[in-house]
């Protein structure tokens, strides 16, 4: 369990580490790492790997919005059925069930603000059980998944010290 936790933590921080590197870092053999990762992938603990990209820097000005959705829960299945349905739209990046004044928090991505607005008005708001939606558009990103969007902090240490 402790080894699994360590592997997951390392991977979460840097998915470019290869199995050999990880084995050295953890002081175990490479096969153990390979087998553990294969199993965690199969069990769906590791869902996948992707890169964290500063699209704005690259020149793309897509739009992201956080939509607060109020939902009438369904008998027997509660929020799951509607949440799973919302999750299937390719425009939707994340779906969370929230405590508090609304129920689902939905992160939607589109090329323009119009795209997102149309998706909310035509697809999301019209779903049965959806009572209301409130859209918040992201203006600027500062940090995502532990990465800061501004330039990396430099190593300011003296190059040699006792």
């Amino acid at each position: 369990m402790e080894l699994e936790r360590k592997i997951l933590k390392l991977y979460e921080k840097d998915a470019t580490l290869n199995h050999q590197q990880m084995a050295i870092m953890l002081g175990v053999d490479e096969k153990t790492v390979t087998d553990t990762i294969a199993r965690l992938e199969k069990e769906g603990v590791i869902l996948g790997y992707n890169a964290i990209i500063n699209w704005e820097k690259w020149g793309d000005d897509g739009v992201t919005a956080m939509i607060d959705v109020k939902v009438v829960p369904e008998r027997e299945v509660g929020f799951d059925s509607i949440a799973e349905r919302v999750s299937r739209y390719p425009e939707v990046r994340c779906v969370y069930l929230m405590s508090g004044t609304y129920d689902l928090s939905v992160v939607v991505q589109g090329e323009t603000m119009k795209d997102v607005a149309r998706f909310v008005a035509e697809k999301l708001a019209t779903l049965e059980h959806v009572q209301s939606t409130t859209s918040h558009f992201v203006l600027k990103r500062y940090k995502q998944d532990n990465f800061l969007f501004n330039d990396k902090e430099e190593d300011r240490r003296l190059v040699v010290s006792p």
Partner: protein
Amino acid sequence: MSNMKKYLNPRVAAIPPSGIRKFFDLVVQTQGVISLGVGEPDFVTPWHIREACFYSLEKGYTMYTSNLGMPELRQEIAAYMLRTYGLEYDPETEILVTVGVSEAVDLAIRSLVSVGDEVLIPEPSYVSYLPVSDLAYAKSVSLTTTADNEFRLTREELAARVTSQSKLLVLPYPNNPTGGIMRREDLADLVDVIIDNDLIVVSDEIYSELTYAGEHVSIASLPGMRDRTVVLNGFSKAFAMTGWRIGYACGHADIIATMNKIHQYTMLCAPIMGQVAAMEALRHGKPAMRKMVEDYNYRRRVMLQGLADIGLACFEPRGAFYVFPSIQVTGMNSEEFAEKLLQEEKVAVVPGNAFGPSGEGFIRCCYAASLDNIEEALQRMGRFVERHRSQKPSSSTAAACRN
């Protein structure tokens, strides 16, 4: 005033410049260097600790504190010493907050020795014990430690060097530069020699949290040793707080009072901003510290594997964030190796002889660096060693390789 030198204190003038300083000047002149030559964490102080300092400044905490340090901080230190090392100190009289452990080393040595007393110092070791003893008019005596014995201080070596003039034993473990540690049984082995010869121990435990095999043991926790030991520790290494300059000394009330006498006239008190930050570190810093230590341990293994692949023999260090490999296969001395490695491959390491003559034949590499930099540095060192491997590796190196 053409001959200024004649005005200088001859005792200070006679102290040779630090070997590290000389090498530092060389490194700063070179561009694009990957440095494994640093002696501090590559992490920045955890945010919650920095934030506690901002808040205290906003609240106007900008004044002197008690000479001994803020009472709340001393209470936190007492609680930390008890829960971590099983050591009980009275925060009112047995704990002194200092400007880094560096000040504490100076205060402890000056408070305990006088003209002619001997200070026993294991070697290789951090660079300050010897000159500080010298400035205190004491005579420093080096105790040799070896790679074969993982740079631990042995009872035999201590017994062989101790004389009727011996007053102090400095015990710097986990060790800079070797990464060696002293386990409970290694320490226990020394105790009766220490007691029989009526020595006081100054135990510099600044790297205590950076121990990768078992738990750090303080010699003060062994029977009969508490009142004979001044334990020095601080925040620089464990909490990545080098620039804050906060350390502390724990020991018998009479020793602490004497240290405080010098401290109050020379330093007055440690800076309050640092003390506030240190308090936050002890109260809430453990999770962040544990993470950093786990990270060092990962990189320690990468470094060791890399050195093994290159063919530089190195015992497995279980403390601090240094490896101390032998460079004998190259036939170079440590300064030559470090200088050539810098010129040819732009990797900075510290020559072992900067830590005393018995560090000759070794280099200190710090693995408090990013994984990418460690791997790149190892590749460059690999090329370098391949190019300079001498024809006949000496037999002692071959023996060390097998260890």
